[in-house]
């Protein structure tokens, strides 16, 4: 196998819990050593010794129970957070499809948001402008694209977000539970688009609880349990492993 496009090598990730508490500057000023110690000590482990190699052009599903660390894995690949321990190498352009319409501003029109989102996701202004019509058409929002996004329904926002992402030119596509919104017709359209990416050799990391979508779209799957990659292998075996690990099902 050539060099993997994504390589998790014994990655650990823990979140400092005190960052989430109402941080007060008072403690820091009154007792800096203790405040800093507390900050380091209180942490929640999400991943520990997590290793996974993804080959170029492969589609891999990430499975696991709520809170198992699926979204953390995607966020690490997208580069919005860094591993606490171990190393992670990502050797390609990532389309961060972490959440459709992430960064859409409710007061801006659909068109303005497409421009902003497209540039944030790595396109040049001219590229977004050139693809604007095609993005709007794919989202089927020709009639409302010049309205503020706050007037859009959840499904419409998700359609526009998917459409922007679908017009990127990524080497790695991250998909997090996005097919849950949108009607059946649009879901089918999204799946067709993801298949097209797959044919073009784009590496896909897919998070979904829809086992049918996982089976349809993925070559392999990783099941996260106990902070590690508990199982890596073909999809049917992964689904069996995942089902067996569910409480009350053994």
């Amino acid at each position, binding site marked *: 196998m050539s060099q993997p496009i994504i390589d998790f090598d014994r990655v650990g990730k823990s979140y400092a819990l005190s*960052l989430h508490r109402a941080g007060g500057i008072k403690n*820091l000023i009154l007792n800096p050593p203790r405040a800093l110690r507390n900050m380091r000590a209180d942490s929640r482990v999400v991943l520990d010794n997590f290793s996974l190699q993804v080959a170029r052009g492969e589609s891999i599903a990430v499975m696991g129970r709520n809170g198992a660390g699926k979204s953390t894995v995607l966020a690490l690949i997208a580069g919005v*957070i860094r591993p606490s321990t171990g190393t992670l190498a990502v050797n390609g352009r990532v389309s*961060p499809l972490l959440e459709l319409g992430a960064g859409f501003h409710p007061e801006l029109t659909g068109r303005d948001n497409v421009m902003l989102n497209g*540039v944030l996701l790595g396109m040049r202004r001219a590229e977004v402008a050139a693809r604007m019509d095609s993005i709007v058409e794919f989202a089927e929002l020709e009639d409302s694209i010049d309205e503020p996004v706050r007037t859009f329904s959840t499904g419409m926002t998700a359609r526009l977000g998917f459409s922007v992402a679908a017009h990127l030119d990524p080497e790695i596509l991250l998909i997090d539970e996005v097919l849950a919104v949108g009607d059946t017709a649009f879901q089918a359209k999204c799946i067709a688009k993801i298949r097209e990416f797959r044919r073009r050799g784009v590496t896909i990391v897919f998070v979904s609880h829809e086992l049918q979508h996982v089976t349809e779209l993925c070559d392999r799957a990783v099941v996260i349990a106990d902070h590690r990659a508990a199982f890596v292998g073909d999809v049917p075996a992964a689904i069996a492993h995942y089902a067996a690990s569910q409480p009350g099902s053994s």
Partner: protein
Amino acid sequence: MSAQPISAWLSHLAKSVANELPHYLDLVRALTVKEIKVRYKRTVLGYGWSLLNPLVFAVTYWIAFKAILNVKIEGYFIFLLAGLFPWQWLNNSLQLSPRAFIHNASLVKKIAFPRYLIIASSVVTEGLHFLLCLPVLAGLALLFGRGTISAAWLWGAPILLLVQGLMIYGIALAVASCSVFFRDIERLIGLGMTVLFYVTPVIYERQMVPAMFQPLIAFNPFTYVIVAWRALLLDGTMDWHSVGAAAAIAVGAVAVGQFVFSRLQWKFAEAL
């Protein structure tokens, strides 16, 4: 650290900047357009507010200090505006900075892009407003017969814009980064800017300050840039001493800002 890694690091930095710069400029532009569009949604006056604010303050201070206290500064109204416009840029940017990352939490959490560009775009947004105030100042200077419209503006203004822009960027970057973890900083900045306003020679001249309080003025980082703007806008001269001091402060601010940001940025997505 020896010279070798530093030069290697610098050339690496230069290369990556050259590669990424066009996209970064697009990002700053897109974020700035967003800022401006969002801010002026459902306002009637729009950009007029950034004119009206300093004008109303100038009238108020003129009544208080000229009409009532009879301060000995000639052309006091224009004098006030020449300090208030650049001060407003400083003040607005720094007052907004604690919430810069917090307001853009969904971008910071979900999309990997250079987050410091959020700060850069907010400095540019406020800087544009300041720039649009300058013609108004020139018009009023003509009307009141105080100050000169000088050719020095053409090259002096870009230098001062850059110096002040960098100074604000550095401070705002540090403030915004720390505010993600300590929300108290917003209160601190609000209080600090109110105090600093009166310790900066905006409504008075530096020479009027009694010797005892001169160190207070000298150690205030904002003194120099305000003094330099006023020399340029009122007299058409570059006060190189103040410009130099302001530039040194700006470089220091950027260094501190980038350092604080680089230490904290990987915790942003977790803390927001």
